[in-house]
């Protein structure tokens, strides 16, 4: 396992380097930059000295250097924990995304927790009681969850939450706590508002997980080793938990790679509809305004989390199910 860990980490390093190069290239692709737009606006307003100011700003942010030099400066900054400067907010990127990352993580983590807590018992119930009334009912609910667009559910939930529970529409906290430091009151306000986005963002994922878990578990339960275990008198609960459920969970472990970036991406469209202060809307805004360091930082953080997530899922799979694919081959 130690050798596997070292080999796997070694693969991550060039992968992250390649991703950083691609991210940097992508954020440089659109013609012009944030400063060009800003200077054009100043010139349109007739401000004197706009050209000199543009030159000074370009030198300050290294925009007058070659792309390779700029990439090197950006990469060294990333290693030092300096994500650059946000032109749009006129603040360091670290300061701009700090709170948003935390709130996005809270929403993402709560959504993942909700998905697993709801999907697992239902998936297991549906598989072990296939074609029962309960299975049919839950399958119908699952299909409804899959078929309902998240943004539509968001609009409906916003209305219902306001009419039934009196919860303020939009946002992740009451207006008086916005831009305030974290406090007990703010925390409770976040909790009060959290269930709506969690329900909206988590519904389709939960429905999809129920369907997949049901299908995987049904496959496993029909295998010979389960029949043998039952024939030998193993209690039904143990015959289910010992191997079939573990084997059925393998695809979900492989999906950890997607979970981590989801936790901070903040489901952009739903966040826009619900006015959530998460990363999604800010990334959209940064891409639109060519705020290159802010957009690049978001993309790089998400890509890094994907790489770390895939790494963790590979480690978990190697520990839980170190099996060769039959008809494959082991290198000598």
């Amino acid at each position, binding site marked *: 396992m130690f050798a596997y860990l070292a080999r796997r980490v070694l693969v991550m390093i060039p992968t992250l380097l390649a991703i950083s190069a691609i991210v940097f290239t992508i954020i440089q692709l659109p013609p012009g930059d944030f400063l060009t737009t800003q200077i054009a606006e100043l010139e349109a307003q007739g401000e004197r000295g706009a050209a000199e100011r543009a030159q000074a700003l370009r030198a300050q942010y290294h925009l007058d250097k070659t792309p390779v030099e700029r990439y090197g400066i950006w990469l060294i900054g990333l290693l030092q924990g300096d994500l650059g400067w946000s032109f749009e907010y006129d603040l360091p990127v670290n300061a701009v995304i700090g709170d948003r990352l935390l709130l996005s993580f809270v929403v993402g983590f709560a959504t993942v927790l909700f998905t697993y807590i709801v999907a697992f018992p239902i998936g297991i119930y549906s598989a072990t009681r296939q074609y029962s009334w309960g299975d049919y009912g839950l399958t119908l609910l699952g299909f409804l969850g899959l078929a309902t667009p998240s943004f539509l559910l968001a609009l409906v939930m916003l209305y219902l939450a306001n009419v039934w529970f009196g919860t303020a529409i939009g946002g992740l906290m009451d207006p008086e706590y916005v831009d305030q430091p974290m406090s007990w009151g703010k925390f409770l306000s976040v909790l009060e508002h959290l269930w709506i986005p969690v329900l909206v963002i988590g519904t389709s994922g939960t429905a999809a997980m129920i369907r997949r878990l049901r299908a995987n578990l049904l496959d496993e339960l029909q295998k010979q080793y389960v029949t043998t275990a039952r024939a030998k008198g193993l209690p039904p609960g143990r015959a289910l938990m010992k191997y079939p459920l573990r084997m059925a969970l393998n695809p979900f472990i492989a999906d950890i790679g997607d979970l981590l970036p989801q936790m901070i991406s903040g489901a952009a469209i739903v966040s826009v509809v619900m006015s959530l202060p998460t990363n999604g809307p800010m990334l959209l805004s940064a891409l639109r305004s060519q705020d290159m360091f802010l957009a690049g930082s978001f993309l790089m953080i998400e890509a890094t989390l994907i790489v770390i997530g895939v790494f963790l899922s590979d480690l978990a799979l*190697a520990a839980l199910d170190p*099996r*060769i694919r039959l008809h494959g081959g082991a290198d000598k």
Partner: protein
Amino acid sequence: MNVLRYPPKALIGDYARAAVGLAFTLTPAIALGEWTAAHWVLVPLAGLFAGFALRTFRRGRQRVTWDATGVSLSGPGAARLPWDEMRDFRLAFYATTRDRAGGWMQLKLAGTAGRVRADSSGENFAGLVAAAHAAARARGLVFDPATAENLQAMGIDAGS
């Protein structure tokens, strides 16, 4: 007497990986100078690759021998495991690709006297697995599904 050892040809890849890993982690750690957030990641990773290099060096000095009575590991981490004291037999496959088509096997044997591990990069690995499997069958050990499938991939029927 049957012997499994790791020829230099089998270890050179791991030495190269350790060297590249150390270069990727130590170079920026030193170049950055004063302690930054990145050092909390780079320094432990450098330790990991240093450990990997040490483990590869140990592998190169180890010999696994077996006969009708048991299996022995000589060199660093020496151990002796008589077959009639073997309590655990696991054959794991560590994939280097997501489709699990490429990778390497690791045999883990454990008993009251100690434990012995061997990788498929060693010469005569198949012979060691066959001998250990026969002993495990004679002891009535139960194989987990992963071990059974890996044995099957090596042409050994776990149930026979």
